[in-house]
């Protein structure tokens, strides 16, 4: 899982390491956006995936976002923004519905998918390391 690239970077190059510990759709965006943008700006980037973040390295991503326990999550609905009460988030199927809605929104607004960002990261020589301890654990 641990992939070692043999990229030569000057010793004075700027470096950045991002620890990715979460594997849900909303938590997947910040590390990948930061990593790809930094790499485009000639920063030598490493992403370290541990615990649930390890999910983000899977070949087929089925990432979800849940309104459960997330009072800040509001979704545009019928011309207004709606915050889903936690009770609603508990109902089976609501997580899937929220995930589909979020993905549709992402597509509609021209925001990259996680798959696209991950591919861009690979193409721009972002080093991705999977945590061996987590692999052994789960």
């Amino acid at each position, binding site marked *: 899982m641990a992939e070692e690239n043999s990229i030569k970077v000057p010793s004075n190059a700027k470096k950045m390491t991002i620890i990715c510990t979460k594997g849900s759709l909303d938590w997947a965006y910040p590390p990948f*956006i930061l990593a*790809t*943008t930094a*790499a*485009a*700006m*000639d920063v030598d980037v490493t992403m370290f995936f541990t615990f649930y973040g390890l999910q983000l390295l899977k070949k087929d991503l089925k990432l979800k976002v849940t309104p459960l326990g997330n009072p800040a999550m509001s979704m545009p609905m019928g011309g207004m923004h709606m915050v889903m009460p936690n009770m609603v988030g508990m109902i089976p199927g609501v997580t899937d519905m929220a995930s589909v809605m979020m993905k549709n929104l992402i597509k509609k*607004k*021209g*925001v*990259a998918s996680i798959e*696209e960002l991950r591919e*861009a990261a690979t*193409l*721009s020589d972002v080093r991705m390391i999977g945590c061996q301890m987590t692999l052994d654990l789960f």
Partner: protein
Amino acid sequence: MADEVLDAKGLNCPLPILKAKKALNGLDDGKVLEVLSTDPGSVADFEAFCRATGNELVEQDNDGEVYRFLIKRVA
């Protein structure tokens, strides 16, 4: 004027920057890339991008809808 044109219209942050970087990598030094974008954030993004990477932002304008950048690849 430009040696290559990158159409990033409709794409959102950070895709215009990522695609521009990729396109610049495929150009020789001194060649100019024209980037078209509809993301208002790309104005600040391309200024910072050029400052950080040393590439030259030759020209930028905006016709109300589309932002246009001319970026010269510098070694």
